[in-house]
């Protein structure tokens, strides 16, 4: 599997994502510059965290118009696999590859800490190796992570099992007290209806090595590896 990591000016989790894919998983990985429009034959595209173009406007609002995103939109619409993490999730929503929007956290502050996620379905490329209901400890680091969508969209997401992760406690309880940023229905990660575009606010690439004391994030990358090998096989 060949992976591509998009680099916008202001991306700052780009190197972390490359490190995870290339060094930890040994995958062929290329950096894709925002001014280019060539995805270099990648099988899966990662839109990393950071502050694309400074994000002085709504997060991701400028990035969606970059030449590389035009190529990504086309790729996704043809069924290509795309995953957005944090700012990447915001960019994919702005690009209408995922439904809904990400708004300022309910407490109006940037929040960086470990939180717990309850896995809502195994039926996706990024959760294929995770049992439904399993709780993962993964950090968040964002100021605009409050997931919002209208009632119809939320109903569709529920109906189609497009909600991948909800904010929970260590025991998998999902309620207001376990919601760090005010997201509707504690939504932390979703996929599109055709299940080839994924977005999540928490950072699995920050929880993928024993030396950092937390490997829960590896389950997400393991899922991608498993899914890719099954698809090839």
């Amino acid at each position: 599997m060949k992976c591509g990591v998009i680099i916008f000016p202001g991306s700052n989790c780009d190197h972390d994502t490359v490190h995870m894919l290339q060094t930890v998983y040994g995958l062929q990985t290329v950096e894709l510059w925002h001014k280019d429009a060539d995805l270099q034959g990648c099988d899966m595209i990662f839109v990393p965290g950071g502050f694309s173009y400074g994000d002085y406007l709504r997060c991701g609002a400028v990035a969606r118009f970059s030449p590389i995103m035009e190529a990504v939109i086309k790729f996704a619409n043809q069924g290509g696999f795309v995953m957005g993490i944090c700012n990447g999730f915001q960019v994919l929503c702005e690009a209408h590859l995922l439904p809904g929007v990400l708004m300022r956290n309910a407490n109006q502050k940037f929040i960086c800490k470990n939180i717990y996620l309850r896995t809502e379905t195994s039926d996706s490329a990024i959760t294929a190796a995770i049992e439904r209901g399993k709780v993962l400890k993964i950090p968040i680091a964002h100021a605009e992570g409050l997931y919002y969508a209208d009632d119809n969209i939320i109903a569709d997401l529920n109906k189609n099992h497009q909600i991948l992760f909800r904010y929970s406690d260590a025991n998998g309880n999902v309620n207001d007290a376990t919601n760090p940023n005010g997201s509707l229905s504690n939504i932390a990660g979703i996929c599109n209806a055709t299940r080839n575009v994924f977005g999540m606010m928490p950072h699995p690439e920050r929880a993928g090595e024993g030396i950092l004391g937390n490997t829960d994030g590896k389950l997400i990358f393991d899922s991608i590896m498993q899914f890719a090998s099954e698809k090839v096989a």
Partner: protein
Amino acid sequence: MKDTAAKLGLLPEEYDRIVETLGREPNFTEISIFSVMWSEHCSYKNSITWLKKLPKDGSRILAKAGEENAGLVDIGDGLACAFKIESHNHPSAIEPYQGAATGVGGIHRDIFTMGARPIAALNSLRFGDINLAKTKWLVRGVSKGIGDYGNSFGVPTIAGEVYFDESYNINPLVNAMSVGIVEKGKTISATSYGAGNPVFIVGSATGKDGIHGATFASGDLHEDSASSLPSVQVGDPFQEKLLLEATLEAMQSDAIIGMQDMGAAGITCSTSEMSAKGKAGMVIWLDKVPTRQPDMKPFEILLSESQERMLVVIKKGREAEVEKVFEKWDLHCTQIGEVIDGDILKYYMHGELVAEVPADILVLGGGAPIYQREVKEPEYFNEIKKYNIDNIPQPKDLVAVAKSLAAEVNIASKKWIYEQYDSMVQTNTATTNRPSDAGVIRLKGTNKGLAVKVDCNPYYVFANPRIGTAIAVSEAARNIVCSGGVPVAITNNLNFGNPYNPEVYYMFTEAIMGMGEACNKFDTPVTGGNVSFYNQSADGGPVMPTPTIGMLGVIDDMTTHTQLGFQNDGDEIYLIGKPENDISSSQYLLKYHNTKYSPTPFFNLDEEFKNQEAIKGIIKEKLILSAHDVSDGGLFICLLEAGMVNNFGFDISSDNTIRKDAFLFGECQSRIVVSVDKDRVGALENYLTSHGVSFSKLGKVSTQNISIDGENFGSIPEYKDIYENALGVMMEG
């Protein structure tokens, strides 16, 4: 002209010196140049004599104090570490958000201008009485400013410290530290030479912000300071991120002669310091500088402290290579002058020579003035001499004391502040999930890590500046050692009041002496830092003396990274170091007994060193499972913090030879709480005994309850709720 000079902060004798050196009267632009370059902020004129007494040599030192923008230390594996701390106190007092943000931006720029990629940030903050609305406004603004800048720039904030005291009501302290990594031998110097080589400005356009900022930072804060608002710069972390990536990319070729960031005194400072270092002259065409607004005057362009700019000297004929990189990152890269023979700086505007000054006389170590100020022991020392522990009553209910201390703002968790900082970006932070006394990051591609910490208990320095500063160095070293590291070098941020006040200057000089003694003991040379005088209000007197120590430590083998938290129910708890019948300058004495004047806690530098060496040894031998030093709040708070990490309680006995309040809450130094698997107890005791180290067995790690001499002190969840939420409750009511 002499009046104008005085208005810009130059003393009459300094003006005379300018006339003598130039052999003529300076014009307005030249006076402006001298006023910033000879300001305290740029020239260190009132501190340099004393700073030179600090140890600065060591086998690992690659760039000594004053040689480059930051100190550079060899950390092995072909890597070097650049690190430095700097204050942004005055801007933060007036405009906390931008003041703190640009403080962070400025210190990171000092690091990457050397070619090092910043990989960690730390900060040391001081605020006034938390109950004041103004303090809350400052806390909100400063923490958001640090967060927004660092988060966007993409460097994790991995450690810090915060104190609240009324002496900082008007003048908070905001000290920011950056740590960067570069391949040894691949650094870029802040120098300029080679007649004909072009001089470029890169990064943001130049605006009218921050003009005379350095002069502003070199005077007391007064009521009209808010009208100095244009002296505060505005930060743009996105530009800085682009500048970082472009700079590191441009350095891959050898087309660059030298580079320096523009901080205080902008173009003036960078052109003069680089020229003085390379012993060359420079011609600058000010009309070529990209500006944000039309009709900027020569002095405005020269003194602007607009952020996110660099001065770069490039080898003639190789401009295109560098221009291409900056163009890729959509940054300005404009030639504004060239290097000339001699030592004169010539600034032109539309072909007209507007200023002509020898570079060397402007800079520290060149012709900038140097002063020694008068010293006098502070009056309040007499109050300290009257202190006697026997006059302090022992409270009956020590459980109530314990709970009140857990909620004390100087002790309770600072998570309300630090959760606003991205502490994990770059995926190197080992202390997110395994907290230890210092912030620890692993270095990818090696087995190594860095342990870094900032420390300064200002109450100790207030009690005795010499001992208090030696303690600050020792505590930083202790934190690094407890984390499994070896202390390597320090940077310092010397925050004091007005140096013309003899009592303030006394504290400054004593602090330097204490720092030197401790740094010699730990073999941690001083690689540079920052002096911030005039931290006081016109009416409120000076802030508490605050010589903040930023220390770098190396963990050669990350498997020895040691956590502060207890690991298993049933593990044995030992105290290394000797408890004393001492509550001097403890938070307990200050806050519970409202007693401001007392000596520093008991401290012996040799004992401290011996105990730290023992910790290094037992960590290397893998004899212990956790280590946490006893500091603010004393032994009880130390045990509580060790317990809260993994929700373990503890069951201990006190030492009946000393007061129980002193045993639990006293802050006598050089003590470390360690936990050990019961199978390793014998080996631990043998090691400590054979090395002549004082130690005692305290008790055992337990499930969630806290028991002392059989008395129930409450449960961990109960204390955790108090400790973790106290600051949030104070901030949000």
